[in-house]
């Protein structure tokens, strides 16, 4: 009872495709339909009809420009901080950790054993009045005696940096680990000092990891609302928070849907430009 060979790949694809179709494609179509609806005249809250109101998009964007801007600013900052922290970490694990390599890798993913939400709430404690950070910084006169850290942009960006750090570290580690150490030796042999060898050989060869890591950090960070909700204030609202409140609090489905699509499109455009610029054929 042998299947014709050509059918096997389709059979293997089927479960995944069926799943994606049911739980991704269909909801997306549904979301697209919702995004151009308007309230039924005289209807109850939450009752909408399809009127192909593309003006929803314009209105939703104009009302939330600030939150869009903030989302991309915070996501960019968190990505840059995560890169700055993760690169040395991944470098050390890949090249300098010796027998501790596996332990360190486990430690990198260890935070995943706790819920995302719990970890973010823990950051609220860490940065709060009762934590050690604020009193410590105050006694060192780095921040003013009245300054707080919770409910600030700083707290939101710090939370995001922390939460997405493993997504930055692991791809960086993977691409650094793949580098043949002899190419770095060869750079030294060819008159490059340590810094030049790093700049000319290690960094370019780790670029696929940098691109993968920044995307894996930036994309979820741009749509994130948990960090802003828990660690921020009304002044640090990101677009994710707006979408969340439109859906669940104001029951304004069309605006929420339009915002979701706008966010998706914005991320897609940015990511495409970024990949073009980074020029990594290996990524695609």
């Amino acid at each position: 009872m042998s299947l014709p060979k050509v059918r096997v790949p389709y059979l293997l694809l089927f479960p995944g495709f069926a799943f994606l179709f049911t739980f991704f494609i269909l909801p997306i179509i549904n979301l697209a339909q919702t995004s151009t609806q308007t309230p039924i005249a005289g209807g109850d809250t939450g009752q909408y009809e399809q009127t192909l109101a593309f003006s929803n998009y314009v209105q939703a964007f104009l009302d939330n420009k600030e939150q869009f801007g903030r989302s991309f600013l915070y996501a960019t900052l968190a990505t840059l901080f995560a890169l700055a922290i993760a690169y040395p970490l991944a470098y050390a694990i890949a090249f300098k950790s010796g027998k501790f390599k596996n332990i360190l890798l486990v430690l990198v993913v260890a935070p995943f054993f706790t819920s995302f939400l719990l970890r973010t709430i823990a950051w609220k404690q860490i940065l709060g009045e009762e934590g050690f950070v604020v009193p410590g910084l105050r006694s060192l006169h780095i921040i003013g005696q009245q300054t707080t850290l919770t409910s600030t942009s700083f707290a939101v960006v710090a939370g995001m940096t922390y939460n997405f750090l493993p997504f930055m570290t692991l791809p960086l580690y993977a691409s650094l680990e793949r580098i043949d150490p002899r190419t770095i030796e060869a750079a030294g042999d060819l008159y490059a000092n340590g810094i030049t060898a790093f700049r000319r050989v290690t960094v370019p060869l780790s670029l696929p990891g940098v691109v993968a890591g920044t995307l894996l950090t930036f994309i979820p960070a741009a749509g994130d609302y948990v960090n802003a909700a828990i660690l921020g204030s009304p002044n640090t609202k990101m677009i994710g928070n707006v979408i969340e409140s439109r859906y669940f609090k104001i029951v304004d489905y069309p605006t929420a849907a339009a915002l979701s699509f706008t966010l998706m499109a914005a991320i897609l455009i940015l990511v495409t430009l970024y990949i073009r610029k980074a020029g990594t054929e290996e990524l695609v």
Partner: protein
Amino acid sequence: MVRSVPAGTRQLVSKDSISARGDLKLTRITKSYGDFTAVDDLTLTIPKGSFFALLGPSGCGKTTTLRMVAGLEEPTVGSIHLGDTDITTTRPYQRPINTVFQNYALFPHLTIFENIAFGLRRRGIKDVKEQVDKVLNLVELPHLAERKPTQLSGGQQQRIALARAIVNRPALLLLDEPLGALDLKLRRQMQIELKWIQREVGLTFVHVTHDQEEAMTMADTIAVMNEGKIEQMGTPADLYDNPKTAFVANFLGQSNLIKGKIEGSDGDNLVVDLFGQKISMPKSRSHAVDNSMYAGIRPEKFRISLVGTPVRGNSLTGGRIEDVSYIGVSTQYVVAMPWGQEVMVFEQNDDGVPPFDKGDEVNISWEPNFTFGLRGDEDIEAGTEVNPEELEEE
């Protein structure tokens, strides 16, 4: 495009060490890793302009020696001089030494042109394009300048690795098993080419290999290494014709080593008793320290003759052909001797005489001058158990 080099770098590379030229001198070098001694009290001078080979089996310390010369490892004890300059502790990028790495270690993200230009750019050389083009022509691959290393075959990568090193005109070029990854035919061709390029550019080449044929083809001088020490150093012919130790006798080609006793002398010759049969050999070729000796004879130096036919030179009687392998240019025989030892004999197929048959009763003979004498306390298996095809050495 010529990039200017930051002032700091320029100063570093224009230090004395970078312009050092002359013989390479290793003085009493030892390198230990914990309890393991990779290189043991090694002293060696490599004359400027020579093609020098460090030959030995895996783990003999040859690669460690090379890495110390390159600056990738620091000796535990001892000093390294290039000309009059002490380079023992200078960083690799401060040494006028370039390496062709075992697996080439080309930069995968750079084009072939930029790979070769790498060293020139670091030193702030002006006419990069001209020099790269010149060396690409030397290795006969000018059409590959814009390719990436992964688009090249193994043999092409090997030449680019060589070009990337020699374009810098180093005082010393180190080759770490440079042909190990190539197939046999390509290896033979590259051996001849490397030798030609070395003459062409006139640089000192230090070549590390486990392949005795490769070392003999290319090098002017070979140092045979074993367990961190140099067993013997000399020209390929010296080492082959007159090995001083059983390790060298067995590692370079094959040897028949027959236990014997020095009975006396006869002018410039020694009279040696091999299981009751007397032979003679030049005194100058004996490395024995007392009257016990292993007489060494290379398999192709032996002649076989049927019992009853006349013989010249030294001869041993009572042999019987045990095995015959015809391999084209020669026929290889295993001959059982009366004392139980089996000796190898290679006969050229050039005399029109049909080969001997298994079971033939024969005598073997050879010219006395081809005999070499080893100390009687040698381990005659030394150097035979290593697998010369063994490649990776860390």
